[in-house]
């Protein structure tokens, strides 16, 4: 066994003969510790350092080289600040906002699907971010079935991926256009969910990860906010709508407690802005009104930072995994069942 010298020298603890206790935050045999507290072997006692834990580093290097895709869809009535929020989330002008007040961009008669891709880079990691916008959703007088174009689009992406997968000669890295996350914008009425919101989420919560957010939440005072959130949560529960993170996919206690905390705080009440103002000597992103400046990243003002941390800093990979392992698999199983017994449809495409 050749020893692979790890790039950083980590203190190697004395290997315990038998694991006498389990650490409070983990229950598995492995601890994939991101902090690098040293690879402790549980289960089977290791007699020396092998270097299995360096796989994390290898994965990191690989990911940095290949980069990864992330597709986010924003759904909501026009004027709820969708584009602004996406710009704020990714701190760049990724979404084309209707900054030009010319009415050339009229409200479309049917729901359109518009997707814009950008490649953003941070710390050597490249991410191809695709923002899928749905102008025209919920804006008409009669909004029956306005979720259908969206549902069709999502299924089309799954279909594309499936076709690539069942190819005989398939590409090494299938381009992933599936929607990983759908941000649904709730109008801050302060009363309850609208009929349209419930219908949409009912139809789509089984197909894609939905994260509901309360848009333009600087309309609500703190009391109104808590009341509204409670009511929304109750309504979602009553209708049986499971938003991301879904309870059924919690893998272990750690996940469950983390996700429970998040579920308690959902839906996030957010404010978006891409303008900066001076507050107390600091430059902050915010909205300046006659009675004060709403700071976007101040957790006392709104929950934007919570949403960002949740979506990007901790659950980004999980969003992709749930989409791939669960939603996509459901779609695939259904499709292959419908196609008959021939599970592997060897099609000659391309």
């Amino acid at each position: 066994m050749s020893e692979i010298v790890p790039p950083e020298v980590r203190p190697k603890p004395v290997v315990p003969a038998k694991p006498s206790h389990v650490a409070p935050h983990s229950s598995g045999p492995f601890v994939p510790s991101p902090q690098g507290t040293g690879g402790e072997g549980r289960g089977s006692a290791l007699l020396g350092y092998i270097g299995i834990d360096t796989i994390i580093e290898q994965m990191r290097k690989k990911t940095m080289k290949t980069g990864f895709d992330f597709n986010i869809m924003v759904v909501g009535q026009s004027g709820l600040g969708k584009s602004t929020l996406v710009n704020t989330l990714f701190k760049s002008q990724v979404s084309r906002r209707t900054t030009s007040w010319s009415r050339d961009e009229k409200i479309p008669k049917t729901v359109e699907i518009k997707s814009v891709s950008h490649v953003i880079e941070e710390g050597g990691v490249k991410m191809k971010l695709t923002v899928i916008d749905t102008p025209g959703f919920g804006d008409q007088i009669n909004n029956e079935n306005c979720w259908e174009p969206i549902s069709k689009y999502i299924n089309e992406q799954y279909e594309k991926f499936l076709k690539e997968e069942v190819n005989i000669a398939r590409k090494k890295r299938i381009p992933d256009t599936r929607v990983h996350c759908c941000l649904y914008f709730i109008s801050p009425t302060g009363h309850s969910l609208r009929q349209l919101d419930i219908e949409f989420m009912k139809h789509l919560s089984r197909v894609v990860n939905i994260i509901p957010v309360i848009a333009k939440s600087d309309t609500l005072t703190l009391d109104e906010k808590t009341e509204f959130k409670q009511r929304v949560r109750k309504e979602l529960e009553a209708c049986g709508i499971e938003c991301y993170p879904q309870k059924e996919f919690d893998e272990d206690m750690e996940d469950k407690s983390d996700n429970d905390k998040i579920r308690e705080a959902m839906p996030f009440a957010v404010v978006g802005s891409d303008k900066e103002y001076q507050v107390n000597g600091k430059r902050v992103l915010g909205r300046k009104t006659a009675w004060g400046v709403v700071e976007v990243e101040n957790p006392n003002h709104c929950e934007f930072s919570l949403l960002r941390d949740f979506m990007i800093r901790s659950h980004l990979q999980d969003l992709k995994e749930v989409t791939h392992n669960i939603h996509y698999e459901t779609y695939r199983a259904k499709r292959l069942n419908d196609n008959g017994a021939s599970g592997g449809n060897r099609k000659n495409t391309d």
Partner: protein
Amino acid sequence: MKNLEGYVGFANLPNQVYRKSVKRGFEFTLMVVGESGLGKSTLINSLFLTDLYSKDYPGPSQRIKKTVQVEQSKVLIKEGGVQLTLTIVDTPGFGDAVDNSNCWQPVINYIDSKFEDFLNAESRVNRRQMPDNRVHCCLYFIAPSGHGLKPLDIEFMKRLHDKVNVIPLIAKADTLTPEECQLFKKQIMKEIQEHKIKIYEFPDTEDDEDSKLIRKIKEKMPLAVVGSNVVIEVNGRKVRGRQYPWGVAEVENGEHCDFTVLRNMLIRTHMQDLKDVTNNVHYENYRSKKLAAVTCNGVDATKNKGQLTKSPLAQMEEERREHVMKMKKMETEMEQVFEMKVKEKKQKLKDSEAELERRHEQMKKNLEAQYKELEEKRHQFEEEKANWETQQRILEQQKLDASKTMEKNKKKGKIF
């Protein structure tokens, strides 16, 4: 104008009118329309400083509604000896469903029914107690999207602008920054002009001060309002407003929102004008349409009308034309009916003829069959007869032979 040489005293007339009106009290009906959650109930409470909707009697929007309802609540408020019967008409459920087609119909029906009540009350013999329940003003709440009017807003206002005074408001205006608010207002006014929506226009006055005020109000249309009943302390003052972590949005601060403008305009300066416009314009419109449909002649058309109706002569001409057209139509219809009847009768006759023919044929056939039968029978009979005759002849012959032989025998016998 004649200048008087002494003091006559009719300058006191306004005071007399004033005293009479105060005794009678005033009535005002205000309608609020908009999607749920836009702060209509809160604004009403703020405008009239009463808890029309409170915790014990929550506003209609707190209850979930499946279809558009029209609800009215009356309250009697007194101030300075003047009595006001205020009726608030609320429209919960408006614009809340997935399919909102025709959600304005209940509203239109309500307004028309109030006009009809007033028309009937006016035409009665005893007109002393004539309550004025007509809708004097409709506040339409626009959601603060910041982009422009929604298709629903445009449809609603287009259908109601000639039935009631429509005043569009931007609800929950504390969502918008001052720049966004300006742009939004401009956008809305542009769209209102594009779609030729007639919102309530402030009348021009000759008074300089007033016209300055009116011009200022016109620039601010549509008014961006914020409502609140909660009193908060700001810098030692008690103000009504909304408490946010980043500041307090004051309701009565002119720089924060246009609430005071709305209140002054609606209550302090233009309430009477709203009632007048409702009476002279919208009500007369309704009345002329209703009466023209009932009577064919243009006599009623010569009565005094508001500016929006046609001249009586033109109306008479139109009615005559309509009448002539109706006559012509009836004539053609009758001709058509006549022809149809004739055709029917002919058809019937043909049918019965054919029927008769058929029967005749059949009877003939029957007769022939019987004839044939009879022929056969006769033939048989003849055959039998012939047989019988031959038989008879044979018998005869035999008899003859027999008699002959007997004779012979007899002869022979005799010989013996």
